[in-house]
């Protein structure tokens, strides 16, 4: 397959913490402007894998990473790599929404401010654009100074998305973004992904099979640190190639 077409490629990625192997050699290609879903039972390594893509795993004491992770053809674990710049390019949304105890405006403006943008007009524009992209603008425009924590769960998560978008990433990593939300809030987030993937590459971890089926273009099935199968979602859910995959998605195990 020609190299030019992939946003992220991992080759034999291994991750272990204090001798315990969490990822046993993962080789995956992620295409740009698509939603790739990672599914698998608890503890299979999908979240660990996700966090390896923006080096959030560096925060884990005693973590050892082997293999390569290429983002736009550059190995992000190489010696010259600026982790801070990487994290601006590859943003992350967490399972439990974690807005800062600041106003809605300051939450979204945090990233740009940290990057040195001080001019009020520029910040205003970035905040508005990001909130619009996250489908939250209409709900908060009347009072941007209200605390981020005063929003509902679904709104908070969209605020976190806006916050991540404000730094101008190219990839969005979402770690079970809707698992703590009610069905209508979940639906809004899923709808958002359809729109966002036009401009961003999205990788989402979910243990909700139906969600993976609804939102993703490609699905990867993880099991105990290994990649079992990865294919177009449509094919994966009508006729998977590996029996283990079929057993998992039909709920026979896991």
């Amino acid at each position, binding site marked *: 397959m020609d190299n030019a077409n992939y946003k992220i490629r991992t080759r034999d990625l291994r991750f272990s913490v204090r001798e315990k192997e969490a990822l046993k050699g993962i080789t995956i290609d992620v295409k740009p402007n698509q939603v790739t879903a990672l599914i698998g039972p608890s503890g299979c390594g999908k979240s660990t894998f996700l966090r390896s893509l*923006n080096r*959030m795993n560096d*925060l884990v*004491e005693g973590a050892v990473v082997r293999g390569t992770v290429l983002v736009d053809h550059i190995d992000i674990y190489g010696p010259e790599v600026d982790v*801070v*710049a*990487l*994290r*601006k390019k590859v*943003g*992350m949304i*967490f399972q*439990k929404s*974690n*807005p*800062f*105890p600041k106003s809605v405006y300051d939450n979204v403006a*945090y*990233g740009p401010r*940290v*990057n040195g943008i001080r001019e009020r007009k520029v910040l205003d524009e970035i905040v508005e654009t990001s909130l619009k992209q996250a489908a939250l603008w209409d709900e908060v425009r009347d009072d941007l100074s209200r605390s981020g924590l005063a929003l509902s769960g679904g709104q908070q998560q969209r605020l*976190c998305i806006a*916050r*991540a978008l404000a*730094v101008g990433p190219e990839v969005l990593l979402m770690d079970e973004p809707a698992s703590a939300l009610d069905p209508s809030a979940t639906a809004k987030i899923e709808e958002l992904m359809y729109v966002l993937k036009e401009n961003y590459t999205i990788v989402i971890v979910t243990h909700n099979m139906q969600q993976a089926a609804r939102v993703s273009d490609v699905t990867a099935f993880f099991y105990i640190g290994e990649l079992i199968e990865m294919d177009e979602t449509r094919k994966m859910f009508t006729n998977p190639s590996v029996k283990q995959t079929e057993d998992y998605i039909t709920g026979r195990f896991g």
Partner: protein
Amino acid sequence: MIGRKFLDFTVTTVSASSALFIILIVLVLIGDILLNGWSTLSWEFITESPMQGMTEGGIFPAIFGTFLLVVIMSFVGVPIGTVTAIYLSEYAGQKSIFARAIRFAVNTLAGVPAIVFGLFGLGFFVQFVGGGVDQVVSGGAELRWGQPNILWSSLTMALLTLPVVIISVEESIKTVPRELREASLALGATKWTTIRKIVLPNSITGILTGAILAVSRGAGEVAPILFTGAAYFLPKLPDSLSDQFMELGYHIFIMSTQSTDVEATIGIQYATTLVLLALTFSLNFSAIFLRYKVRTRSAH
């Protein structure tokens, strides 16, 4: 069974009595001080200097001295303690030898008796550092820094209260949820930026608690300043760091044991004690209140 019910009754009575006993003691203590000191307390008492050989007048210099001591102590102790706490909780690895050594030192320091600090302050700050500065400045001719003064007392007190500050600040930093740090880092902020913009602002109550507890202890301890700078009678207020100073706790000590006419100054002693107690109580209560606010915030 009768036996069990009797046991129940006994235990309840005994514990209630103990609690009552303690409350009683506190009431007696405060009551005694209030009763005997109230009459001497007045606006003039707080704002005037002592007169007639400490038998009349006010205790303003002692209040001023205490205040100055506490301010300098805080300016030195709180920043150092805060920075150490930040290092311990954010930068040092949990298992690193260095971190373990620091924690060990902090815990040990917390248990050192106040008088030992006083002796240390005398030997190290007054004689070694002070004497050394005098040597450098004037070749030993002029004895300016090599004697007790408010600077050495403040530094000694800062050392004493350092463990309190470090522990309070570290405790407060730990209540800042990991998710907030992760969110900041994931946005491309550096570790220091995250600490500066997220961790510290959200642990400010803990820092304040530590500072207030330190101040409260500083205002109350006498042993560290015995040899390092406190004086009983000074003609004027200290106007440089190399001056000695009067202090509330020290004043009470000297007045009640070594003054020329103990009987005549009883009223003043009580009143001074009352002022000191009022000061430390209000400081402690505000620290407790802040602590409560920290705990309820971390509960969500």
